[in-house]
């Protein structure tokens, strides 16, 4: 329960509206509770007074009271429920602004679906608490007290008998809606399995077809569907008796009134008008009593959801500005140094980088080569602080990168990741992603350098072509070049290319490298590649092996060293050249 106290700060923001809402609830209940009394008077008038005027009077009053209550009912929704949407909005804003700060580690370890579930389901169930639950509990509570008071003053005995089933009803609803909630969650889970399976199977359709396992996919899918159906039926089983029993218990109350009350009327202890008021009041009470059970559940769910959200919101922002940040730094020129850097992905994982020390002078180009999984990408990720080092330090212009404001650090780095991610937006907006203004000449320039302009004919609407699901699919090479153009467009001081030409043919690659040589004249660049032809011109080449720097030097020096690099070079030479060599 105390989880929900965290919502207080949100409630406080809207306290005026909420206060009004509560006031409206009270006023509206006043009107509603008045109606059965009018009904009683008019029926009593039919058994004793026989006055047409009284009838008309009461009838008009009923409409008047209903109108009065109605106006406030309207206002209740327009305040309380609107506030719940406001708070939902605020919660989501806070959620997202936190998510944006979380490190790459978080996103690699949590699936998109999981994060989405929190953003939608959990926030949704907290909103149910903030709005409907708050509204109904105040509404119900006040109504219950007033009505029971009126009933008691009419006939204590009859009140006792007729209210007898209601606590059971409340308890029953409470118990069942808890079960319903659990089963509902299971259905949701299965449904998301179903969606995931379909998504995965359809997007991997090439592999499915190539390896001829359509049948297995259909079988898997059938199994999940069957499971989903069973989960649904488990829910149906409850629902099927939930409603009938609700009506049964509620109906019994009324029958008790008719029977016991009828006897009292015969005995002359009660009037027929009182009985009818009783029945109408019971009708009014049944919903609140049901609501009690229901609300208790909403509160429980909301508190569970809030707990999960809190876990999320407390997820540490590992990488951020802190007291060591020196805000006077607002630019740098690009001298990078690694001092004895080590890194592991988490406590019980092995070291991925171990004692890395290297210097990269501004304006120079360095290359990193190394085997699959040797730690190249990991090393590059440390520079813009996608991860923080586990040991040692990285400096730029002599400042520890942890002291450079994060946005200053990242703004001047052009990063082309090994796996390209583009937004499903126009090509142009993808290229200009790092800039804040639309700038056609920038697009042209960046596309020119990255040789994306060669492919312009393939894009139906030029740079305005939309990419992704709703647009065209780029080839691997085109994606890589778009990602390169995006990095170039920010006018970086440091350009980082992580195996960015793996899907680009050598011809085009050569042209890009030629352009880059010019562009990178006084910028620092770091290139990772498996192709000797890509790295051979670098000022320094580092060979990474199992997280350690094994060799370093220029192409010629490393060849002369006759180590890993020379071997690599040798292997990439063609056989006839090898013959010539010997």
């Amino acid at each position, binding site marked *: 329960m105390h989880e929900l106290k965290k919502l207080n700060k949100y409630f406080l923001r809207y306290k005026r509206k909420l206060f009004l809402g509560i006031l409206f609830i009270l006023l509206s209940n006043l009107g509603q509770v008045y109606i059965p009394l009018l009904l009683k008077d008019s029926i009593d008038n039919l058994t004793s007074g026989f006055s047409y005027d009284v009838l008309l009077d009461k009838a008009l009053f009923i409409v008047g009271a209903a109108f009065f209550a109605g106006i406030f009912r*309207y206002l209740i929704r327009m305040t309380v429920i609107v506030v719940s949407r406001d708070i939902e909005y605020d919660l989501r*804003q806070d959620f997202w602004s936190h998510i944006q700060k979380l490190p790459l580690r978080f996103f690699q370890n949590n699936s998109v679906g999981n994060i989405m579930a929190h953003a939608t389901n959990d926030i949704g169930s907290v909103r149910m608490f903030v709005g409907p639950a708050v509204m109904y509990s105040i509404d119900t509570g006040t109504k219950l007290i007033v009505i029971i008071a009126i009933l008691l003053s009419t006939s204590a005995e009859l009140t006792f008998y007729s209210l007898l089933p209601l606590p059971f009803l409340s308890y029953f609803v409470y118990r069942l809606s808890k079960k319903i909630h659990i089963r509902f969650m299971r259905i949701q889970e299965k449904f998301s399995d179903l969606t995931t399976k379909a998504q995965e199977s359809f997007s991997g359709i090439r592999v499915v077809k190539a390896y001829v396992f359509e049948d297995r996919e259909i079988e898997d899918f*059938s199994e999940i569907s069957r499971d989903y159906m069973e989960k649904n039926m488990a829910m149906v089983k409850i629902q099927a008796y939930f409603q009938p029993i609700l009506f049964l218990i509620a109906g019994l109350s009324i029958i008790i009134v008719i029977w016991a009350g009828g006897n009292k009327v015969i005995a002359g202890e009660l009037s027929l008008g009182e009985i009818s008021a009783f029945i109408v009041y019971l009708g009014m009470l049944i919903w609140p009593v049901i609501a009690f059970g229901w609300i208790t559940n909403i509160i429980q769910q909301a508190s569970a959801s809030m707990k999960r959200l809190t876990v999320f919101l407390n997820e540490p922002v590992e990488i951020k500005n802190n007291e060591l940040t020196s805000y006077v730094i607002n630019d740098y020129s690009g001298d990078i140094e690694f001092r004895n850097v080590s890194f592991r992905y988490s406590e019980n994982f092995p070291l991925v980088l171990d004692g890395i020390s290297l210097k990269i002078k501004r304006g120079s180009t360095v290359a990193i080569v190394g085997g699959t999984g040797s730690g190249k990408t990991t090393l590059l990720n440390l520079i813009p602080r996608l991860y923080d080092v586990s040991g040692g330090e990285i400096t730029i212009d002599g400042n520890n990168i942890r002291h450079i404001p994060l946005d200053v650090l990242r703004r001047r780095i052009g990063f082309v990741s090994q*796996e390209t991610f583009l937004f499903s937006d126009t090509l142009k907006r993808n290229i200009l992603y*790092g800039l804040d203004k639309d700038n056609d000449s920038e697009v042209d320039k960046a596309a020119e350098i990255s040789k994306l302009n060669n492919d312009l004919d393939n894009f139906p609407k030029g740079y305005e072509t939309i990419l992704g699901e709703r647009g065209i699919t780029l080839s691997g090479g085109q994606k890589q070049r778009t990602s390169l153009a995006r990095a170039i467009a920010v006018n970086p001081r440091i350009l980082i290319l992580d195996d960015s030409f793996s899907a680009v043919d050598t011809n085009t690659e050569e042209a890009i490298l030629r352009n880059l040589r010019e562009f990178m004249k006084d910028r620092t660049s770091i290139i990772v590649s498996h192709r*000797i032809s890509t790295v051979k011109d670098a000022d320094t080449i580092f060979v990474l092996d199992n997280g350690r720097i094994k060799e370093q030097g220029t192409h010629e020096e490393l060849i002369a060293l006759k180590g890993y690099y020379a071997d690599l070079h040798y292997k990439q030479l063609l056989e006839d*050249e090898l013959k010539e060599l010997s």
Partner: protein
Amino acid sequence: MEQKDDEVLGKAYDSQIMKRLLGYVKPYKRYVVLAIMLNVLVAALGPLRPYLTKLAIDDYIAKADHNGLLVISLLLAGSLVFQAVMQYFLTYYTQLMGQKIIYDLRIKIFSHIQKLALRFFDKTPIGRLVTRTTNDVESLNELFSSGIITVFSDIFIIVWIFIFMFTMAWDLSLVTLSVLPVLFYATFLFRRKVRESYRDVRYHLARLNSYMQEHIGGMSIVQLFSKEKREMGNFSSINNAHKNANINSIFYYAVFFPVVELLSSIAIALIIWYGGGEVIQGTLTLGVLFAFIQYTEMFFRPVRDLSEKYNVMQTAMASAERIFKLLDNESFIKNPLNPKPLPVVNGEIEFRDVWFAYKDDEYVLKNVSFKIEPGQTVAIVGATGAGKTSIINLLTRFYDISRGQILVDGTNIAEVDKRELRRHIAIVLQDVVLFSGTVKSNIGLNSSEISEEQIIKAAETVGAAKFITALPNGYNQEVKEKGATLSVGQKQLISFARALAYNPQILILDEATSSIDTDTEILIQKAIEKLLEGRTSIVIAHRLSTIQNADKILVMHKGEIRESGTHTELLAQKGIYYRLYQLQYKDQEITRSA
């Protein structure tokens, strides 16, 4: 604007679609008839009770008959219990039927999509196909399980109420029911408005979700480019639009519910005023008045329900239409009627004057002819977009050719069962696809024919065993979404191992080693040579060192094979291949001379 597309609602009833839908109900026809009959019966029980109340008041309370009152109270209780029991069975069985129909339909859709040709996938967003198999089917569920049958029940409840009311007092009935047109109109208006605003809410919700989905996936780009502020702005405006859409819909609820309550109070006021007058005149009994007050409460619900059912029907029709459109799409790669058997393959491949276009007659492959002898290794080189992947797409019959012939072991592949053909071929695709599951299941693809030893053997052959065994759970390690915690090269190795575990007669590598270091690559090559000795392979790669040992190299340029021969032959030709070679190696002259 896909979401809006999917939201287009048409008629609530379309006889042709309905007929087709009922086709799925056919196996359960008896249930339906039974359910409807029970419904008609049960519908009478609710309206019966106010009538019994009237009897209680007029015949027993007024006449001070204690025993009669007890009997009628028991009758009331009995009808209540009976109704509850019937209701239980009705709900259970109609839902069961609905679920079964949905299950059948869902599998049918999924299987259908699995069979569709790649050409179809090229132009259909995956998200839309997922929606068909999930949400669209779900909205039919409502139609089958509650829609069709409760419509009957609601109608009969109203009919029964009318019957009881009119037999008791027709004039009071008319007076009371005079609010009905207003109720109908209000409900109709409300439904329409709510539907519109609900559609708006759904649209904005979809936008919010797809924004979040996309940006959670691309968060590192947002962060790398320090665009958190701008993205926060974008998010806020979408979030805000979503909030406003919701608040708009609150308005309609806020108006509608009080209006309904007001109408029901007006009806009661009318009963008291008009009916009360008649009671005073002695033309009406108190019991009738009493029953009428209960009936007004009672008929508001089915009216509201019915209008809701209208929405259910409308959504269901729209979904059904989309589903049937998909099921009617027969763009399959057709198997021949009497496929020639292809039990074993030696691996001879021949392309004869093959022409191919993805779109109309923008030919991507022009007059391509080549022959690969069994056991040969053939390399294909060329710039991106030259048509290398397309050749492979044709060989596995992912697409059908426009002109020419493709022969495997002298048999035209159009004449054999495409699945049998694919059983002999393993491809390592350009884009790595990892499925959720373990490393093991990603290599063996859960095939019963691939043993654990074969999986391990395959992983060892491609040099993946080393990093796999270093994982905390080894081969049983869960693969995070899209293999997020593996290096790119490692992912490629897994998909490579998958091809070897398949033990194919023909192996195709489409830039399969682009992110793998040369060392590992050479190791793999040697291991494969041993493992797949005598089998045919096709290799596409940009690194010339990868392909130099091929028995034959095909040089593609703009959809044509421009050169072919061995490495030495091609160099001697001084053509495209020679230029490519120079690009990759010219600067290495220095080292050579050094």
